[in-house]
């Protein structure tokens, strides 16, 4: 075990993947000698050469188009989109190409070796275009896997699993935690399962569900709620697509209450999808309406970021209201 922040854990995962398989290649804007604007690819070019870790021109649709072709050829591209806010020029390549490659060819071809890494989320004074959480756009696209880690240990194991998974995967990295989240990370290669949520804490009154950086927010909120005597079950969804209905439903059948939180705006957010499915599964067991604590239906603001944000106080209030309903 070694103490690492999330960036170091991601860098370690990339390093191990490149060492284990010479077909793994890392590329994107500024990922070469500079190691990426957040330094997630530090020293990889120095270690594995310019052919396997390199800068690309500034063109997101090109980066993902290139990655699609490279994956179809049999290589393992790990493409970085510098900020999730800038992934949209590549939307067509991801939604119409990556996600449909296997299906449309009857499995003659696939781009399952591809992984897209991209930092997402607010809390860094990034305003409209360095703060977004666009996971729900992609969650509407069968064929993709969407993964979000909550800490360094998870980041390393889930990223290695994403690189090795035989389906195209978008790996959203909570950039607010890049340096803020520090923890013990096992040495060497290990993979954590995709498509499986994790129950972090058992409880009996209410299930509190989130992913990525929101798990830290949930921890704080739950700490407040438990002081009030509310017993909370905490779940990290980890994989947004395809998501683990069973684990969430099983928990809600037990607690009868569900609070879901994400940074993205309310309307069309992934919490809505979870709420719809869970009310179907758990209708007769629900003690209160499923609550969603999310960003507001505005573009991501700057000066009033704190007001907009689904912070621990808002999550705490939702827990209290849910239990006292």
């Amino acid at each position, binding site marked *: 075990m070694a103490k690492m922040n999330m960036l170091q854990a991601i860098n370690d995962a990339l390093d191990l993947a490149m060492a284990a398989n010479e*077909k793994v*290649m890392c590329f994107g804007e500024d990922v070469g000698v500079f190691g990426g604007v957040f330094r997630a690819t530090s020293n990889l070019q120095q270690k594995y050469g310019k*052919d*396997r870790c*390199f800068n*690309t*021109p500034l*063109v997101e*649709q*090109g980066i*993902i*188009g*290139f*990655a*699609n*072709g*490279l*994956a*179809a*050829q*049999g*290589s393992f*591209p790990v493409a970085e989109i510098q900020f999730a806010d800038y992934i949209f*020029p590549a939307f*067509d*390549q991801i939604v*119409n*190409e990556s996600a*449909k490659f*296997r*299906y*449309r*060819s*009857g*499995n*003659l*071809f*696939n781009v*399952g070796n591809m992984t897209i890494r991209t930092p997402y989320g607010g809390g860094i004074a990034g305003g409209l275009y360095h703060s977004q959480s666009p996971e729900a756009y992609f969650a509407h696209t*069968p*064929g993709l*896997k969407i993964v979000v880690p909550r800490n360094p240990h998870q980041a390393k194991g889930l990223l290695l699993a994403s690189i090795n998974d*035989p*389906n195209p995967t978008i790996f959203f990295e909570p950039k607010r935690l890049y340096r803020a989240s520090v923890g013990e990370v096992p040495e060497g290669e290990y993979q954590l399962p995709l*498509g499986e949520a994790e129950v972090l804490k058992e409880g009996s009154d209410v299930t509190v569900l989130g992913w990525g950086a929101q798990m830290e927010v949930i921890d704080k909120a739950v700490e407040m709620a438990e002081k009030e005597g509310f017993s909370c079950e905490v779940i990290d969804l980890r994989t947004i697509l*395809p*998501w683990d*209905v*069973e684990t969430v439903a099983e928990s809600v059948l037990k607690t009868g209450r569900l609070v879901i939180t994400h940074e993205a705006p309310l309307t069309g957010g992934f919490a809505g999808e979870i709420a719809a499915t869970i009310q179907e599964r758990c209708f007769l067991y629900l003690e209160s309406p499923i609550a969603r604590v999310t960003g507001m239906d505005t573009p991501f603001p700057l000066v009033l970021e704190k007001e907009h944000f689904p912070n621990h106080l808002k999550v705490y209030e939702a827990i209290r209201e849910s239990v006292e309903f």
Partner: protein
Amino acid sequence: MTTTKSKIVYTPEFTDGSEYRIPTLKLLKQDGTLYKGGKAPDISKEKALRIYRTMVTTRILDERMLAAQRQGRLSFYMQCTGEEASVIGSAAALDDADMIMAQYREQGALAYRGFSIDEFMNQLFGNEKDYGKGRQMPVHYGSSKLHYMTISSPLATQIPQATGYAYGQKMAGSKQCTMVYFGEGAASEGDFHAGMNMAAVHRVPAIFFCRNNGYAISTPANEQFAADGIAPRGFGYKMDTIRVDGNDILAVYQATEEARKLAVEENRPVLVEAMTYRLAAHSSSDDPSGYRSKEEEAVWQAKDPILRMYNWLLKKKWWSAGEEKELQENMRREVLETMKRAQKLPPPPLESLVTDVYDEVPPLLNEQFEKLKAHIRKYPDEYPKSAIHVQGGA
């Protein structure tokens, strides 16, 4: 760090590049003789006849399948008519293991590689033998064994993909290249720029083959771009560029053969612009009489690429009118017989609705599938294609 080595001037000078006009390579006249100064590429009789038979096959397949569409047997079709020399001449200059990433009108390249009439028909009718499992509209062919990437409807997405594919070929030391086809209309898409620029920067063994056929559905080339065709864009990327008469089989073959050498031996990507004409409609859903004249079409009918190659073959004494008649009759018969056979094959099994979304069917999708099967069991008469697959069980 800028890398320009431009000369310095002291008064403002603008240029739109028109002082340099890109030439067009022509070798073969319509009567089958060579232009003065033109030298035919080294093509064996065997290869020439493989090319020619493929051109005729493609033309007949296109004629018959458009007719089948008109008769209501087929939902949709797209013809390659008029562009056979561009597509088949270029495919013939490749190694058969080079990857082809086509747009959608390049069935001739696939036929050249050996895709059988049966295989074409199975895709067109989306039957149980279609490699694509009946999931895509007609003409979205693909073949892994023939190194022909399955067609995708969105335009130009294949261009940056070709750059990535070729980068993988280079890294693997495969000595293969990737050939990517697109029309002059698709070259307006952002993906064209993305793929071309990345190819030049990362030095990949790829050939970017533009079929400049004059029209993007109804939009003529002069409403698509202001420049002299697509070729000048190659300069902007510092890419080796050549323009050819796309109805001239020998010019297309020679240009592509040379382009492949640059790509494979020197990792220099190449842009080839083939000047041709889409003699047919854009697709079976289109009617060109609404946007172009019969006179204009007649000018290009007189430049028919197949007739031009036929005349050359006759002069070489590699082909005869008798062999032509026999080939045409045999192909027409084979197309008709195969069509009848393919039409009778059952559709793909119901399960193919949910497989291949992922490598394995995820639980939530599996639940949806079980629900669907129960629904079909309840209303079997409403789902004649799939009721047979869900009989029995609860």
